């Protein structure tokens, strides 16, 4: 899917959107990171072809674009699942045992950090503090935040997303 994402007609619309974004930021000082943010919003991740296109349109060497994409953990070069599970490993959550929650997600879903389930429904991430320290330990699935989570809650939390 990634290889043809800039070619078929269906993807033409996405490309047009990307070009709109590039035009919007063209004259902004330091346009690359805002463009990458919006491009990731359009494609869900930043496939090689998208990086190449941005590089050509901005006249920034591809190596630099790639360098920026891989520097920041917020940018992904691999597609993600429909639901992204972020287990908070910030200090407040860590001292309250969030690693055990992460372990339980790993065993329950059978995937490791950074991976996506085969059906593309869930991907698992560990993140640094989502600022919900009052609810520690916390887990965020897309925009939903679950607080005071214990490993035993993992299955029932996942059930909310499994139809």
């Amino acid at each position, binding site marked *: 899917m990634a290889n043809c994402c800039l070619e078929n007609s269906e993807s033409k619309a996405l490309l047009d959107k990307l070009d709109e974004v590039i035009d919007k930021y063209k004259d902004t*000082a330091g346009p690359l990171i805002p463009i990458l*943010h919006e491009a990731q919003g359009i494609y869900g991740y930043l496939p090689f072809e998208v990086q190449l296109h941005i590089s050509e349109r901005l006249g920034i060497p591809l190596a630099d674009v790639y360098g920026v994409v891989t520097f920041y953990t917020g940018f992904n070069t691999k597609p993600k699942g429909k639901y992204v599970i972020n287990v908070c490993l910030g*200090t407040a959550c860590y001292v309250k045992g969030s690693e055990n929650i992460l372990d339980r997600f790993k065993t329950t879903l059978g995937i490791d950090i950074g991976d996506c389930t085969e059906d593309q429904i869930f991907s698992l991430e560990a993140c640094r*503090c989502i600022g919900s*320290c009052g609810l520690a330990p916390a887990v965020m699935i897309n925009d939903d935040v*679950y607080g005071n989570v214990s490993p035993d809650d993992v299955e029932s939390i996942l059930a909310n997303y499994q139809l």
Partner: protein
Amino acid sequence: MADCNRKIDNVEQLNEIRERMKEKLKPRFEEGAAIHILLCGVAGCLSTGSLKIYEEMDRLIKESGKEKDIQLVSTGCMGLCAQGPLMVVYPDRVMYTHVKPEDVEEIWNSHILGGKPVERLFATESDGRKVAHALDEHSFYTKQLKIALKNCGVINPLSIEEFIGVDGYKALATVIKEMDPEEVVDLIKASNLRGRGGAGFPTGTKWAFAASQLERKKFVCCNADEGDPGAFMDRSVLEGDPHSVLEAMAIAGYAIGSDQGYIYVRAEYPVAVKTLNEAIKQAREYGLLGKKILGTDFSFDVEVRLGAGAFVCGEETALMTSIEGNRGEPKPRPPFPAVKGLFGQPTILNNVETYATIPRIINMGVAWFNSIGTEGSKGTKVFAVGGKIRHTGLVEVPMGTTLQDIVFGMCGGIPKDKAFKAAQTGGPSGGCIPAIHLDTPIDYENLIALGSMMGSGGLIVMDEDTCMVDLAGFFLHFTVDESCGKCTPCRIGTKRMYEILSKITDGKGEVEDVDRLNVLARNIKNSALCGLGQTAPNPIISTLRYFEDEYMAHILEKTCPAGVCKSITKFFIDKETCKHCGICKKHCPVAAISGDRKTDFVIDQEACIKCGECFKRCPFNSVLHH
């Protein structure tokens, strides 16, 4: 664009709005006929369902046709996050905690209509008592002094008029109408305000450097890249009182001669980003940002830039490199940003809390500000108190308050009567403060002397069940992960330290490892390029200083006293005290526990993954570890 008519052209118009809004906001500050129902709509409270509560209350108000007399307001953080969602009914000042959507009708019928507050939803004190007026009576609030957080939880962050009603943009008007830029810089200098982002550099001095540069283009930046795990002060200010930051940035722009500001904010804070953008839009509509502010020749605008998940971007030169669109790698200093910063121009960078403090200093005066705090640290500091603590939340206290006061006096101490072991401040750059130093007044100098640092304000409390070696490893792992890779001491040095530490927590450490850690720590401290690298060894240095015995237990006895380090911990069930209740068996995720009413409960050591659930769940403390 259609709202050009809202533009405020002069100070008189600003004063008019202030007077009108002061009248409207009266119930929240003094008496008033109208009822104002304030609901925390951010952070923890939002996550636990405050939006549904808002909708339910909104429905009841609309159905009753009392929209004129009853105002419902979604506010920023009220602080007592542990008991959220929080609601305060004014002018009674009654605070409700743990509010659920199904409680709303009872609050409506009993309190709003009937005048009888709902007791069961009052805030809980540390001793279990219920208090009706938590803001005035609860120990969590009574010892606080709010400067940076003054408006958080009291106004609607999305309403610029409410902000103006609590003296918002008054300081900006004073500054640009009545003061020279040099006077503003001198005032900030005289206030002795120090940066709240970590190192505590004097803000006025920073401004003076930038002001003295002759370049025509200068920048004002705000560091809202709150990367320190376990800290959410800046988030709360941005979500609860964004205009204070904008106002202060404009004041800074006037003082140093800049017309452009940038706020660099974490992409992980979507609500803060949305709130900021909305606030900027309103400020432009009202002519408080943009060209010719309040009819003067001063112009200033602000743009939001999103981070993309790199801790190092909290370092000032890295942050600017990132705004320029590059990998966020720090640069050697000098040249300092005040001379050559963003896009090569003179730039000042201050943190969110520092900015939020500035308008108050101008409104209340330097003498007032200097009367708060300690000799070297004036004013207040916001702390995000988390970890093993009863009242998790956000507190703002005068500098010089002791850790004892914060942890036990205000935040209710440790749950389940466990023993306090240490508090960690300053995040991955800081260190921990053990129980013997609980009485030290907190200020910049004292924390440095204890081997920690103020940092941005994360304060994580740890009890007897926290392993300090494991904690040091946690922070070091963070640094290894987040090291930008530019300089060798940080990139390779922290990795080597982490490997040594892992060896120790795996029970394979030797006594010499402690010396190796000390040598590496010293070398990294002396040779890393940026502040984050130089402070990366701090968690190790400080845990070694206060908890060497724990390191030695791991190395010599191959045991983890707290039962955290999995490879050297074994859990077992004490037959003598076991009551055969079966709770441990039920909660074991890998079914490693066997036993029933008649036979002894036993943990199969082969199958056990050492998650510690049985230990935590056992009501009779019959699960032990060594």
